[in-house]
């Protein structure tokens, strides 16, 4: 901010200067955070890996070979070894990123949309509507998220779509709660009263002033849920409630390789490492975003 002002002074006298703006400031602060930038690059690499899996993976992730079961890491032709059915681990990990990322991002994204609508409306309109909505949300929030996800998936039956649905339901309550509390704060700000004093109706106030101030913090919170969602999705697959074999998915791979833990411990640990690296990168990225967006003064 101070650097921007000093840059601006000589220019300002002759021509109007484009203000660095809020998002430019956020980006600048984010760039200074080395850890967050590193995490962001890792996330980007994983996303690219998932998108171009067909081109990057050295082998077909589903082609099995009974002769090459449980090869150790570094075997020629199998850089990260082979699994219990002799499938190339590297290819399976690369392809597995697709489903894992999908299961991490999509439920959170849907829950972000639904939870924001619930939370913002409850926070803005307040009163009885707030009480009814938020206490309903609290009922769901009272269950531990893992338990709720397992219970819902178990009731709905195994499958990608059902675990997607159950994860979405799990993430709506925390997002709605954050949205409600931020909205309640913003609603009592002077600029909302000032807008009302200048003739803005509730629609304008929500659209312009509430959403403008509230979506940023909710979004940052939602990104921190991506890693949780990935881990939960992997957990569901591990329990046999998510993806079905032979589809490569990290949680499922962890499950099927479980029996090989004494034979090839390093190979068996690889899907877990992939989950760990991805989720910690998402967390660090969201942390960096939070601190970069926090400064408004």
């Amino acid at each position, binding site marked *: *901010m101070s650097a921007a*002002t000093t840059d*601006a002074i000589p220019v*300002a*006298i002759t021509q*109007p*200067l*484009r*203000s660095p*703006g*809020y998002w430019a400031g956020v980006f600048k602060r984010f760039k200074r955070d080395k850890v967050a930038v590193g995490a962001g690059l890792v996330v980007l690499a994983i996303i690219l890996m998932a998108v171009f899996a067909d081109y990057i993976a050295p082998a077909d992730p589903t082609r099995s070979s009974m002769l090459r079961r449980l090869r150790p890491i570094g075997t020629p032709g199998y850089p990260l070894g082979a699994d219990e059915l002799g499938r190339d681990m590297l290819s399976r990990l690369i392809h597995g990123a697709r489903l894992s990322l999908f299961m991490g991002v999509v439920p959170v994204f849907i829950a972000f949309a639904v939870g924001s609508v619930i939370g913002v409306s409850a926070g803005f309109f307040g*009163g009885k509507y707030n009480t009814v909505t938020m206490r309903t949300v609290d009922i769901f929030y009272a269950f531990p998220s893992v338990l709720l996800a397992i219970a819902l998936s178990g009731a709905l039956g195994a499958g990608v779509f059902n675990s997607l649905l159950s994860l979405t339901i799990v993430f709506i309550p925390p997002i709605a709660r954050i949205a409600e509390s931020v909205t309640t704060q913003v609603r009592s*700000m*002077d*600029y909302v*009263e*000032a*807008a*009302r*004093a*200048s*003739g*803005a*109706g509730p629609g*304008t106030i929500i659209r*312009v*002033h509430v959403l*403008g*101030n509230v979506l*940023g913090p909710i979004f940052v919170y939602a990104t921190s849920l991506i890693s949780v969602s990935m881990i939960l999705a992997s957990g569901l697959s591990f329990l046999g409630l998510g993806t079905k074999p032979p589809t490569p998915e990290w949680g499922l791979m962890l499950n099927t390789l479980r029996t090989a833990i004494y034979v090839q411990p390093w190979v068996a640990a690889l899907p877990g490492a992939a989950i760990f690296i991805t989720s910690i990168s998402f967390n660090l990225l969201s942390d960096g975003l939070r601190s970069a967006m926090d400064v*408004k*003064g």
Partner: protein
Amino acid sequence: MNPASTSTLLVAMENVTVRFRGAQNVHAVNGVSLTLEPGKVLGILGESGSGKSVTLKTLLRLLPESRTDIGGTVIVDGRDVLALGPQELADYRGRATSMIFQDPMLALDPVYTIGEQIAEAIVRHEKISRKAAMQRALELLQLVRIPSPERRLKAYPHEMSGGMRQRAMIALALAARPKLLLADEPTTALDATVQIQILLLLRQLQRDLGMGVIFVTHDIGVAVEVSDRLAVMYAGQIVETGTVRELISDPQHPYTRGLLAANLHGAKKGERLEAIPGAPPALNEPPSSCSFAPRCKHAEDRCRTGLPPAIVLGEGRIVRCTRAEAELAPA
């Protein structure tokens, strides 16, 4: 007040009461009547909790409707404010009457540029393009004399100083060319040097644009600086009104006298500043006797048993004190 004179007035509040419902009711405003002619400045003077801000918000109907009972009549520019429907109210707010707030840092939205906020307010009331609205916003920033207005148009509130923010806030309030401007302690959050600049600006804008202004403050010096007429509020009632000159040179109500005596301007070095003893009353019940009586050194029995009469000493000169009767008698 007769109906004929009401029509030429910009503001006519008649016996307005405001009660907040809750676990404990609060009678914030108890029978306020005031008038304002077009192009004049009325200063409302009072301490915290005297009901001056509530009176101001009543004029825009900004108080939370579900928890507030408002009585009496409020006529602004010929419109019965308390009877407006939702759409009429939206048109009235900002267009006929507009308001500037105490702390411009809080009253400007941090995520939009100044230009965007002013343009938003203009588009709300006038059917013009975004681009034309931005041009108007620039003119408004020039009007409030912000240095390098082209640049400030694209600046965010946190990038500006306190004085500039308050200028921007004034520009925002003037966006739809209101006839009445309400100012709720607009200089309290500012440095002393900036305060006087903002006061002078407000005074000049008011003259240039011919606006009526109601200016609420607890600072008697500020009130004298900008106002044509003053109203002193205490415990939700106007205890004394008159022109600035009348009130300063010949205060009638003991509370007004106390306020003037507690002012630093006339104080001598080494002397103790005179203060009004006691504290304002709680407002859980509507007043049934003089609210100031417990702190008043002239209080008599009748002050404690009944409401003091509103004594008219002259044109627009009203005092709510039994002692003013003596003033009236010889004349």
